[in-house]
């Protein structure tokens, strides 16, 4: 299995629901707590597994706003795993999920330097590296309803911009979405082979207008005067 996410940039409105949902699930989850620094003071910050970047492309008035959620891509070629001196960082053989053994991590940061996607977050209180687990503590939990055995970010997304599944299965919804919507990996040129993929904005369908253009005002008025409709 190759588990991962598909994120639909056509409908992501940048609302941060996924990020906060991730935060609340995972702060009591398997690598929790997700520490917050200065939560009520200056420059509040904290450990988040999922962050939404907002960009503008193009100059006014041809500008566009892009919302870009980013979390661990669960790469095939996850260099973050290779560089780990303690073996804490690993990629699960059975499903490809990249995890960090919190009891082996010494917080050396090598992995975060190796990650081109900025997905790894050092918890300065625990001294360990943390990151998206694809909600490993949800997706196999048989005490949850099957529909709830998905990452918290996917369940919560109000725009249904996030999809979870197995990319090894060509018939899975995520595989189909990638095929049908020309899904792409982020920065494939770096060779990490991220599992997560993004769907580009759909093309807007042109709406024809020629067929609703009137003939002339005089013509219209003549029609208007004679048109009878029963109430």
């Amino acid at each position: 299995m190759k588990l991962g996410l598909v994120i639909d940039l056509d409908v992501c409105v940048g609302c941060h629901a996924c990020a906060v949902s991730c935060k609340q699930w995972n702060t009591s989850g398997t690598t929790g707590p997700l520490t917050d620094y200065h939560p009520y003071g200056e420059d509040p910050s904290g450990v988040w597994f999922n962050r939404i970047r907002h960009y503008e492309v193009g100059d006014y008035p041809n500008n566009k706003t892009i919302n870009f959620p980013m979390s661990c891509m669960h790469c095939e070629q996850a260099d973050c795993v290779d560089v780990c001196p303690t073996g804490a960082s690993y990629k699960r053989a059975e499903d490809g999920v990249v995890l960090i053994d919190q009891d082996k991590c010494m917080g050396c940061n090598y992995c975060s330097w190796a990650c081109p996607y900025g997905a790894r977050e050092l918890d300065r209180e625990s001294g360990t590296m943390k990151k998206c687990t694809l909600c490993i503590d949800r997706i196999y939990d048989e005490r949850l309803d099957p529909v709830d055995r998905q990452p918290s970010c996917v369940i919560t997304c109000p725009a249904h911009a996030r999809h979870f599944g197995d990319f090894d299965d060509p018939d899975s919804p995520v595989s189909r979405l990638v095929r049908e919507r020309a899904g792409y990996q982020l920065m494939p040129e770096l060779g990490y082979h991220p599992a997560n993929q993004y769907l580009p904005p759909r093309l807007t369908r042109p709406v024809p207008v020629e067929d609703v253009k009137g003939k002339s005002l005089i013509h219209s008025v003549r029609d208007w005067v004679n048109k009878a409709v029963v109430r």
Partner: protein
Amino acid sequence: MAEDVQLYQFITIFAYSEVRMSALPEFERRERQQVKATTCYMCACRCGIKVTVEDNKVRYIQGNRDHPVNKGVLCAKGNAGIMKQNSPARLNSPLMRKPGTGRGEGEFVAISMAEALDILEARLRRIRETDPLKLAYFTGRDQMQALTGFWAGQFGTLNWAAHGGFCSVNMAAGGLYTMGHAFWEFGDPDWERTKYFMMWGVADDHASNPIKIGLEKLKRNGGKFVGVNPARTGYQAIADEWVGIRPGTDAMLALSMLHVLLKHDQFDWEFLIRYTNAPYLVVHTPGEKGHGLLVRDAEGHPLVWDMEQGAPVNGRLADITPALFHEGEVGGRPVRSVMALIAEEYLDEQYAPENAGRICGVPAAQIERLALEMAHVAFRESIVIEVPEGWTDWAGRKHYQFVGRPVSMHAMRGISAHSNGFQTCRAIHFLQIMLGSIDVPGGHLAKPPYPKHIPPALKPVKDCAPNTPLKGPPLGFPTGPEDLVLDENGRPRRIDKAYSWDAPLSNHGLMHMVITNAVKGDPYRIDTLMMFMANMAWNSTMNTAQIQDMLREQDEDGEYKIPFIVISDAYHSEMVNFADLVIPDTTYLERFDTISMLDRPISEPHAACDSIRQPVINPEREVLSWQEVQLELGMRLGFPALTNKDGSRRYKDYKDFIINWEKEPGIGFLSGWRLDENGNEVHLRGRPNPQQWERYIEHGAFFEMELPENTRYYRHANRDYLAFARQAGWVGSTDQIVIELYSETQQRFKLAGQGLYDGPMPTEAHHKQRLSTYFNPLPFYYKPLEQGRVDEEAYPFYAVNQRPMFMYHSWDSQNAWLRQLCAQNFLYMNRARGEELGIQDQSWCWVESHNGRIRVQVKLMEGCQPDTVWTWNAIGKQKGSWGLSGDANESNHGFLMNHLISELLPKRGDAEDAVTNSDPITGQAAWYDLKVKIYPAAAGETGTWPTFPAIKPLPNGNRSPGVLRYQTHRAVHLKRSLEDILTRGSVHDANQGAVAEEDEA
């Protein structure tokens, strides 16, 4: 058979070994966890949630998949409920201003709830016995207006309203006076079927999740999304087309598109004739009494010109052939049909795209194309839904199809918060109506209990007396000057001057004027100001600094001009700091509550819905929900509806009241699981059911009743629906709801302004001028009032504000997680325009209006109309409030635009200097009319200005932690085996994955 068994066993064993191979530990402490359903209150959207609670702490909040509003999803705010529940700003007990200290100094003593209620009871009893108008009761984050309005009515004060006057009354009034429903709570786009969606102005979050769910559906279905907004933020990010309009000019854009539709003969002729007053005849005698009123027969029926009979006939009859365009004479008076007036008005060149484009800052070709695109989708891509069982129209005729025009729209604050918002809202509805897209498949759908007759048949009560309940609701819908709430001298009777000549259709009151009016004693002084969850000393008021001064203002004898201020809030807000008595509210996870159809409904277009909240957390503080407080006070004060004849309490508590109180026989706050005569559970109408709360809790804290197929569209003219709605108590009759393109109500006020009305008329010149100018039976564009009263060259920028999606309608700059997403607001402006003015990205600048100046940090961006600056509202906080520490960004770098906005119109030395800065029709606060200039601050001038002294900590306040490590149980770690570490090679090794091999091959 034997083979089957073997196979079955094999599968079982295989599956078991699979599980063992990837066996994971139990991560949750389920034996200590409970999941309870309730309703979110992180914003006004009211989504269903399932809360997992562990040892009285919130483990997880998930959207309720079965819930009609959010269908399982949940926004950032809803997901941050844990940090709301655990906010250090929570109040721990009632507080009283320390004797001998001044108001606003922040010196409090903690008192018990019993003491607090005794103090409040005594004060209220004296007011009620003498002059109930001395109590002004206004609510901010209200989702229980039916209850607070009921309470005010029983108390007997006219001085009650919720926050709609400074929020979105223009949208509610614009809709209810036009089509009997409105945007958001009273209506929604038909997301399943719409093919073209236009969103006007800031609307990111009326409502939160439903719009997001809907936008995705629209795009999945191949629909087009057009965003009309000065800033390309929020939902505009995914708009297929962005129209970067100048703020406050939307009416011109809408009416120019209407011009295009008329010019190209693109309007829904059948819809207009059958469902609107477009064919009605209007008296055309300019300058005379009666001009502009409908021509009526002796019974008062409006007349139309019947083309078959060649004569005027009752326009409410079926099977007549009304002329849509008609000009002639009836009874010796010249008359014109409404549609003829519409064509004459909007075909005028002033509405041509070239002219509109100059005003709106939108290319003329784009205006024309957008209008035609909508026409194409409406009329060339119409939808037909077959209804096999048929639906019956208002006249009893059977139809077997619903014809749909799949164009829909949504608008909210961006339109509403201008002083021309009412007419703008009507202009947008005009477009929808011309396209025939009201309550039709793919169009804009009403949500039960809407549509109502136009306007709803409730008039505001005018009189009150000591110890006497009001005879009706304090708020209602005037249809003419005789309905205003004025004294014998024509002066306002309400403290907020609602329903006065200043703002005749102020259906939601003017909460933003209460403090100013009470302090000035205009129209009179009050004794007690009681507010629930309203931050009127900070971000919810205009002119913040001066309002704070007013709250401290004293008479010569040392008495405060507002003698007593009572605040109920769950958190330590800036307003709490100005209270004399603080009644701490529970959080939304700690109380029983109802979200009632008598109130602001949560229904879906095709389902009648209401819901409840139930406590999922035990507060462990001395707090009481405002619901309970109201019930308790009402019973102590002997409200007739809450006490028996002998004065004893009629209800045990809030829960008991909700079950047993009936508005009319069979109708109460909750419409699910009532009882019929035989004791069977029925919905909508029925007698009280002692088990009602239990039923709601069993069913996920909500009630949803799907409407039958034949009652889902054309409900304004659908007798099947109207009969159903009448039985449910939603409408008073099954008469057709005729959509009012032409508003006779508007014309009556206009005539009053012109001195041509048979009834009350204003005496002051500025009132006459305002009525005759801004009231108009057909919507039109006028410049927002502030722009006519300031030097526009001196203040060249339009300044607007909005809330980020993750805080809109929330109370959560304090929220440890949400404030990490935005702890400082900037002033955003167009990059090229900023560079022209020598303003650098992230530099500090002065922003100045007629009302003052502020220093802010600027960010340059592309997605901003060049004449517009904007910011995130309500990020800036006063130091020491909301559990934030003194160094919080919100207090040192965040800012409020409110300082620049006056609650009164800009001074020009005329009578309007003392008039509210609001829509002259509805009293809607004109937040977005602001004009400003902007220039760089001097070197070394940094940081927000003005600054305010730090609010002192409360005597029993909570400590705000420097590091937060929230979890409900110790994490159960996953461990990697040593064997795996030692035996697995690099991720680059071929044995690490098939994909890598294939790529190399």
